[in-house]
């Protein structure tokens, strides 16, 4: 946990290493930055917890596959393998090239989002039409997952231009405006959950790019007001219903779980029972009655955390949060130390995405957040998410590998 702290350890990476960097000094006196051997090219403080998390996730999916027919352990392993290949590609690729490709990134994001609407590519599952089936190969994926990463890169490349200070309102509005493009495109999937992640990660990038506080607060106020208007009009008969009924139900259940429109309250209740009944050590692999006997719906995808918490208990939950914490703070620590504003902003976006997805997914299992279909990164069953998340890890590793003064 010392990785992210300014005051970490006697030879920490704190002020000294940082200032060295900021001055552009060529010396490699900072112990972390002068790492030798494999740590020269791999940022282990972030990579190790990630790989442990993936391994832990595989164990959970394997245990889910014992009782849930759709949870195919093999398919998950294939997803991990594909993800690692993609991550390797990202790692080898010099991310800096992307800093000047904002237009291409915007086009890529738009293309990904339009793809499901193109005849021959579209594919529907679970009420969300946002799936793409690659012709001939027949492989299916959710374009909104890679779109998250593309949007982060896009916003980072734009935000980096201002070198930490957004001076004019025009620039600020331009950034906000461009962020709404992928956001709105994701909403058309429709996938409100992923849209929210993109919005939050993009907002974090804009803020860190140096937007004046008052502008940001006014923007947040406008967004909250707008969202409330959307909810209120959707609940009022006669006014346009922007939100779908199932989305409204999830909000209603979040406010008052005792009502149960279309089983959302039941799902939440079952998830909470699963988590709580896990106790300290958990019920053990294969002994989870909530997820194993079908009381907990979507136990291998959206509610995977509840399954884990039931089988491995508080110990397992702590390990999971610890690994997430380690990789998140290692990434923040890296962001502190790298020089390039683009790299910093990319890391800000990725860290925000992980943090927000963690909050959203775990939070929904324990009644802190409304129910959304957001997967738990590295854990939930599903290849699209796994590949996109591992690509993000590859991105972090690429930033380490291509740091200017090292090696």
């Amino acid at each position: 946990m010392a990785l992210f702290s300014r005051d970490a350890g006697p030879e920490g990476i704190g002020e000294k290493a940082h200032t060295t960097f900021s001055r552009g000094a060529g010396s490699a006196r900072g112990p972390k930055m002068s790492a030798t051997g494999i740590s020269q090219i791999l940022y282990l403080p972030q990579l190790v917890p990630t790989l442990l998390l993936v391994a832990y996730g595989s164990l959970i999916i394997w245990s889910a596959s014992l009782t849930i027919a759709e949870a195919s352990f093999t398919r998950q392993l294939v997803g991990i393998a594909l993800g690692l290949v993609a991550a390797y590609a990202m790692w080898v690729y010099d991310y800096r090239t992307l800093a000047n490709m904002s237009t291409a990134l915007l086009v890529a994001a738009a293309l990904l989002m339009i793809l499901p609407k193109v005849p021959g590519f579209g594919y529907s599952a679970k009420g969300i039409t946002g799936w793409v089936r690659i012709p001939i190969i027949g492989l299916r994926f959710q374009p909104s997952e890679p779109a998250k990463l593309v949007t982060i890169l896009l916003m980072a490349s734009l935000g980096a231009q201002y070198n930490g200070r957004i001076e004019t309102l025009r620039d600020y509005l331009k950034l906000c405006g461009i962020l709404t493009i992928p956001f709105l495109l994701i909403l058309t999937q429709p996938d409100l959950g992923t849209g929210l992640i993109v919005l939050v990660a993009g907002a974090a990038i804009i803020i860190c790019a140096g937007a004046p506080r008052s502008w940001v607060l006014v923007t947040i106020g406008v967004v909250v007001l707008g969202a409330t208007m959307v909810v209120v009009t959707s609940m009022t008969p006669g006014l346009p219903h922007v939100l779908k009924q199932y989305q409204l139900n999830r909000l209603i259940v979040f406010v008052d779980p005792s009502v149960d429109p279309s089983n959302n309250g039941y799902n939440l209740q079952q998830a909470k029972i699963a988590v709580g009944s896990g106790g300290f050590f958990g019920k053990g692999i294969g002994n989870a009655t909530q997820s194993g006997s079908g009381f907990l719906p979507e136990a291998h995808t959206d509610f995977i955390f509840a399954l884990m918490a039931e089988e491995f208990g508080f110990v397992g939950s702590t390990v999971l949060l610890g690994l997430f914490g380690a990789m998140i703070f290692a990434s923040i620590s890296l962001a502190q130390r790298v020089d390039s504003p683009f790299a910093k902003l990319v890391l800000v976006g990725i860290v925000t995405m992980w943090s927000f997805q963690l909050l959203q997914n775990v939070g929904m299992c324990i009644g802190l957040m409304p129910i959304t279909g957001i997967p738990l990164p590295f854990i939930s069953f599903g290849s699209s998410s796994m590949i996109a998340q591992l690509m993000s890890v590859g991105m972090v590793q690429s930033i380490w590998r291509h740091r200017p003064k090292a090696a």
Partner: protein
Amino acid sequence: MNPIVVIAILLAIVLVTLVLLVLVNRGEARFTFDIGGQAPRASGGGDNSAEKGFKTRLTGLSIFSGSIIGVLFARLWAMQLVSADEYAQQAELNRTRTISTVAPRGRILDRNGIELVTNRPSLVVVASPDVIDDEVKIQHLANVLGMPPMAVRRKIQDQTEGAQSQRTVAVDVSRRMVAYIDEHQYLFEGIHVEERVQRHYPQGTTCAHVIGYTGSPTQEQLKAAEEQASDTGISYESGDTVGQAGIEYQYESVLQGVRGEQTVYVDADGNVLDYASSIDAQSGSDVILTIDSKVQQAAEQGLVDAIERVRKAGNQVCNSGSAVCIDVTNGDVIALASYPTFSPSDFVGGISNDDWEMLSSEEAGNPLMNRVIAGQYPSASTIKPLSTFAALNYGIATSESQYVCSGYWTGFGEAYGQYCWNHDGHGGVDLRQGIVYSCDTVFYEIGKGFFNSDNPEGLQETYRRWGLGKATGIDLPAESEGRVPDAEWKWSYFTQADDYARSWQGGDTTNLVIGQGDLLVTPLQMACVYAGIATRGKIMRPHLLKGVATRTGGGTVIDYESEVALTVEEQDASLDLVQSGLQGVIYEESEAQASHFTNMKELVAGKTGTAERASDREPTGWFVAYLPADNPRYVVASCIEQGGYGSESAMYVVRDIMGAIYDEPDTSNAIDTSGVR
């Protein structure tokens, strides 16, 4: 709380906070999250440098991510450590279901261990009430079950098992039909096959009125069982088999088992995954009756034959009757039959409305009615022994009293003349002969004597002393009390009549003394009276329960202990006179009648009776007798409604029962034409 209100409040809070923040932070401030504020950096970098801006913003990001992990951790701590037990309990509740298991109902056996009622598994097709709206489904079902669609429709419409409950469409369906329905479940939504345990009657309709029948528990029974559940442990569920009449009802608490409990683990769809703890169901106990099947069958057949005999003789209105045989030494009911009868198996799986209406209808002779205990008739001449006791006790007559019968008695004046049944007159008769020949004149005199005496209600007192006017206390539900009329009763009964008609008249006493008029008795009451005469005053309580046996243990766990219902004090001389008179009835009254009994080794004593009823109805025929007269063991009584003379109807039933007991069938074909009553 209304979600809109909550959202509105949240919105207001957010807006106010934002406005305050904007007001406080006017200017070009950027997010710094720099706790240290203006403190100079070690690097000496300018406060406004891009580098410092990033650094502090990244610290903000750390706080953002750190607080997310912190909040989640705190919440998980609360759920998985603090409230873990509570959640574990809920999870356990989630996956366990307790199913109550049916306890087999006890059997009903006769005194020799012959099964009268037992259980058998049965496949039953049941349908949800809403199937009635689906014509196609009904048609399908009718085809499969081989029933007319109309019948299927009526079964589904039938609400006797409760408006919400599943409707029994067919009982005892074949495996083949079940297989078809199971394989084509898509055609038969709302229709299920259930395996049930049904009551089974190996002896058919034998003993129907004794056994009674079963059905689903009524609302009252459900409620009563709930209130007493702590004592009996018996609880009912809709669809259970519960006694509704007869022994099934009387000994419900013995026959009904105690449901077991099976705790199972289920999945979210309710499929049973595994079995947890279980409490075994306790079978109901077997009830052993005092009934002897052989005698019982003779009684039932005897009734059928006797009624047939009467009808063949030209009396087509005769259609019902009853007979009972009791062991006078202990009150054991050996046979108890009522006609017309019913089939208890009609009630298995729920009786249809049509069947129920038929079984309760007057035109069909009210087959469900147990006439032995619930049929009330004037006793007719069978009361004469009691009238004799009364006369002797109150000094109205002595064993030496002599009477002259001219066939027409005018003791209350010419205007109130009454016939003896023998219009030719019996001539000079004494008290014993009055019984033997059933001479009404003798008893008219006795009645007149009572009417004019200081004890005008001495007759009623005597009748009551012998148990008339109140239930015998047999272990069957719905026993009638009968009626011993007196002045007070008459006054309050005929409220519409004028005072003269309401007041007790001499004619009422002379009617009463020969068992006509307003006196009402049940065949069982008369059997008890004659049992008392046979035992010289000790009337045992009639009962059907011989013992209770457990299914598993073998042997009886409870044996019925006979009890004296009534002890009647009469002088020995009086008893001798009456007993002698009753023997005389059998052997002296008429040759034809005697011929039916002289072919038996046992001496018989008894009395005929012919109760006049309304003028448009044939009289009710009675015959009550006990044997062996010298060492009484059994009393047999029979009563045929609209059967005419007792000697031409009920006598045959009694004789058939006696024949079955002693294996001495009646060989006489003589028909009594004397018109003896």
